[in-house]
């Protein structure tokens, strides 16, 4: 590989875009960067995936710091859910020994489809509930009450402080465990599942879910990155422009996210989940039945 200005600028630009959309949705953005590295620059897939995992840390640092500063992130909720996410990632590596990859992909296709449909069908619900103050009227479950998971943030689009009572901690924790398994086994899908789990099952407004997920994804990505680093797969010449671009994009994205109405964020989240579920389904079909669906990216 010879380092050139065009190589650096293309990676920087793609990573910037990934970081921007990742900041809006609380996800890592690897899904945007890996195809650029593999298809455009013919980098080996392992190096591309390793670089994308490091970019997840970059977006989490940049986006997470901004959302923490804006007090959008729910720190206690994030810490609590990180327990199940990290355990999920650990058990994912054990499960990999017993489960076929295509079967796991089919399971996650179903999960992503379900969650994407929920996000799409409930896309206007957040704004209505925020206007009515409904997020503060829920009754917490025992675990949420014991851990004091409730939170609030100032919504710039709605121009009000939104208080919310967290419910469904066991269910949300279970789904985040699956998110950990997904990101550990498959390398994608952790962030979207976490955001959806918090928003759809834990009574957390979309923006608080995005801010909290943004902080959480860095932890699971850090563990994977350490392993890739020790194996010599993190090629820092590739990581450098990707990490810088992601940082820039995520920083810009965090300035905009709170100004958008939640309905647009949920539209984007649903689209991303449908896109990911198609990709996983296509790969599963190819692996198990050698049926090749059109590639969307």
């Amino acid at each position: 590989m010879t380092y050139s200005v065009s190589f650096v600028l293309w990676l920087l630009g793609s990573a910037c875009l990934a970081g921007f959309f990742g900041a809006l949705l609380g996800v890592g953005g690897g899904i945007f960067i890996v195809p650029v590295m593999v298809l455009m620059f013919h980098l080996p897939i392992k190096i591309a995936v390793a670089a994308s995992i490091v970019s997840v840390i970059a977006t989490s640092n940049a986006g997470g710091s901004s959302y923490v500063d804006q007090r959008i992130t729910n720190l206690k909720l994030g810490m609590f859910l990180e327990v199940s996410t990290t355990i999920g990632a650990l058990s994912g590596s054990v499960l990999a020994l017993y489960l076929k990859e295509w079967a796991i992909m089919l399971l996650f296709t179903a999960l992503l489809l379900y969650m994407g449909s929920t996000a799409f069908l409930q896309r206007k619900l957040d704004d209505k509930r925020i206007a009515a103050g409904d997020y503060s009227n829920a009754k917490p479950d025992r675990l949420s009450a014991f851990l004091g998971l409730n939170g609030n943030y100032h919504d710039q689009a709605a121009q009000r402080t939104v208080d919310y009572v967290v419910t469904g901690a066991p269910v949300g924790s279970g789904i985040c465990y699956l998110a950990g398994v997904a990101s550990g086994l498959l390398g994608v899908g952790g962030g979207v599942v976490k955001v959806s789990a918090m928003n759809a099952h834990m009574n957390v407004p979309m923006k608080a879910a995005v801010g909290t997920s943004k902080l959480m994804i860095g932890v699971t990505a850090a563990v994977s990155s350490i392993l890739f680093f020790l194996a010599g797969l993190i090629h820092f010449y590739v990581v450098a422009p990707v990490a810088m671009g992601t940082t820039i994009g995520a920083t810009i994205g965090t300035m905009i996210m709170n100004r958008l109405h939640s309905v647009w964020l949920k539209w984007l989240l649903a689209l991303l989940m449908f896109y990911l579920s198609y990709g996983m389904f296509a790969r599963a079909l190819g692996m198990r039945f050698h049926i090749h669906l059109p590639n969307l990216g």
Partner: protein
Amino acid sequence: MGTEKPVVQAGTNSNSEPIGNVADNVYADVYKVLLVGMVISTALFAIGVILALLHPEYVPLSAAWVRQQYHWHTFIHGLATANPGSFMLLATILLILTPVSRVVVSIYVFYVDHDRKYVVVTSIVFLVMVLTVILSRLGLK
């Protein structure tokens, strides 16, 4: 006439219980760790990229070459002689360690705040992270 919704004060729920649960110092300390990690790693990446573009060289893509750069004297010599790879390597290490540091700092801050529950919660996260790395390395061997 009809039932009216209760007026909810900002920062309390409908039972007038406070919402918003974490002391400001926890947010402030987590923010500082993330910000410092982000700024320093980005600056080091930028230095490395600029140096690499000023003196373009062929860089192997192999894992063996990457691991060679980890040797302590190669790394120190590289920093001293403005080798772009050494700067990027240092930036990568700092970037990866930032979320880990965030978890460790959180344990400390919750401890200072006498929040035992979250000292336990955050310590579990840290232990699982360490266990994952150890078990994976043992598995690789």
